[in-house]
């Protein structure tokens, strides 16, 4: 079982004009096997939510709590959060020149498991995960994210999720910049992950397009650092038809 519980989370960032509050009280619970979509206009704080949960140093939590299976996430270091079962797929994955995908994946797996993976099955697992994302086995010899196309970066993120097998995956705009073929490959990867026992998914997106392939159990509309409305998958259809306008106006 895995439950990610976010309660009244307030987050700010330092700007030239002092601290600016981005999240203004977010409450959200992701239970076993649930997929939640967070949708909202640019600048509404969707990404901030993902990065604060993962522990990016840029963000300061001013109040509220985040727990995973009852454990205090905010007390943990970034790598401890990963060990507790969190995974963040980034909108703009970072280049690490000179570090091969293979080395990166093995190092991460070793860190998470506390022991090195068995060589023979591991190579097979890696190649299998890459293949499912339409990535050539030679991909594992390239430097992490260096010179990757936008689509390759996103497929690489999903291959990592597959191999590292977290409890809860935070997917930040995993669909941005993908053509329709890549979007299908990425969506299938997310769906395979969802089918595993007790996995939670927080899918952050600007567009409804990906929700045709990955079915959310809940949809939250995020505006101005808060959840403005919640509903089932039908809310996504409504957003597709009407856009965010009425929520943005209401928030002003």
């Amino acid at each position: 079982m895995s439950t990610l519980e976010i309660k009244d989370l307030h987050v700010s960032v330092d700007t030239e004009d002092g601290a600016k509050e981005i999240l203004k009280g977010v409450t959200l619970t992701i239970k076993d096997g649930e997929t939640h979509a967070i949708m909202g206009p640019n600048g509404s704080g969707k990404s901030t939510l993902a990065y604060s949960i993962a522990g990016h140093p840029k963000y300061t939590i001013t109040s509220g709590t985040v727990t995973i299976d009852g454990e205090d996430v905010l007390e943990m270091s970034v790598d401890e959060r990963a060990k507790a079962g969190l995974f963040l797929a980034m909108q703009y994955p970072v280049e690490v020149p000179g570090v091969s995908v293979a080395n990166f994946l093995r190092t991460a797996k070793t860190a998470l498991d506390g022991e090195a993976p068995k060589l023979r099955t591991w190579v097979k697992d890696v190649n299998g995960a890459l293949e499912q994302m339409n990535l050539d086995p030679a991909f594992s010899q390239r430097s992490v994210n260096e010179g990757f196309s936008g689509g390759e970066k996103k497929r690489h993120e999903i291959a990592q999720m597959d191999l590292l097998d977290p409890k809860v995956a935070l997917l930040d705009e995993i669909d941005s910049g993908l053509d329709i073929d890549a979007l299908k490959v990425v969506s299938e990867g997310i769906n395979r992950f969802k089918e595993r026992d007790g996995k939670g998914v927080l899918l952050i997106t600007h567009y409804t397009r990906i929700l045709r392939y990955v079915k959310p159990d809940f949809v939250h509309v995020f505006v101005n650092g808060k959840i403005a409305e919640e509903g089932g998958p039908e809310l996504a259809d409504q957003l597709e038809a009407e856009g965010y306008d009425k929520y943005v106006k209401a928030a002003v």
Partner: protein
Amino acid sequence: MVRPVETTYDESNFQVTVTENLSSALELDKVESHLHPEGSFDLADHAVPTGREEIWRFTPLKRLRGLHADAPLGGSFFSADLTVPEGVEAAVVDSADAGRGVSGLVPWDRIAARTWDAAARTLTVRIPKELVADQPVYVDVKGTATSADDEATASHVVITAEPFSQATVVLRFTGSMTLADNVEIVVGDGAQLTVVSIDDWADDAVHVGHRHVRVGRDASFKHVDVTFGGSVVRHDTTAEYAGAGGSVDMLGLYFADAGQHIEHRLFVDHTAPNTKSNVVYKGALQGEGARTVWIGNVLIRKVAEGIETYEENRNLVLTDGCQADSVPNLEIETGEIAGAGHASATGRFDDNQLFYLRSRGVSEKEARRLVVHGFFNDLIRHINVPELEESLFATVEAELAKNVLAEA
């Protein structure tokens, strides 16, 4: 004094008159440029530096043990081992018989001039015409000095790769001593030569080296300069081309610890058309007073049409208290070139890189280790001497263990 075979120097105005390979139509006149070192074999032309000169202003003269002034250079506190693959000839001969000057080296500073005068014996390494050496040549120099007062050593090396030969020569420096050396390298037409220099000195060694290469027509030369040890290490590495189509790679990897001064001064003189140069130096600094200097000079002469050059220096500052100077200079006398560029960047760990790695469960310490390994990794692969890769990675690891890994 032995003069270069095909070149004569008129020392009154340093005009270079080329009589053999290059016609005078190539206009290899003196270029009015501070990049262009004016050499002289006469020590009187090289005043004792004060430290204010452009070429000395970064160097801690006080720590050079008088190499730049008048300290005697007759010491021999070292042992040298040669490992020579079949077909390659290596010998230590009287300097008068060594064919010195064949690379076109004319001492361009006082230490080089003093070294020229003081080096009685010269190591010659000759890779005969068309020979493809299957193993590297190793020259292992081990310093045996026990005190900073032990007399400094002057040495001279001449490496000649004859036309169409292929070889790798590795110069390894360990132990402790005060060394001033001149290394001349001649790469014959169509030859491919790699020279690797590894300064893995003990912490109290002082090494001032001058290396000059003349690259033949369609020849390729790769110089790899790895600097880990020593108290003060200053290397001047310069290249010129004897014919069109030559290619030079200069790769450098250095790691400065507390109190260490590591200085690299490079000069690529594009003296022939359609030549190439690619300079990439990467360094890491850690600990109080760690200091690195990188000067990357490139001169593209009027004659050097269609050339391509790129130089790059990157420094990773791992702790507080370090200083990295990085000065790329590019002087272009012709507009008819294929490409010319340079880049320099000095910075600390990238927070986003560390965050990305840590968000996958990798500890901060391990993330830092990965980033530094990655930083040097590309460069080590480009060295392309498989025999050395392993030990270079191990040395990087050992350097990291001193500080970055110990701290986190």
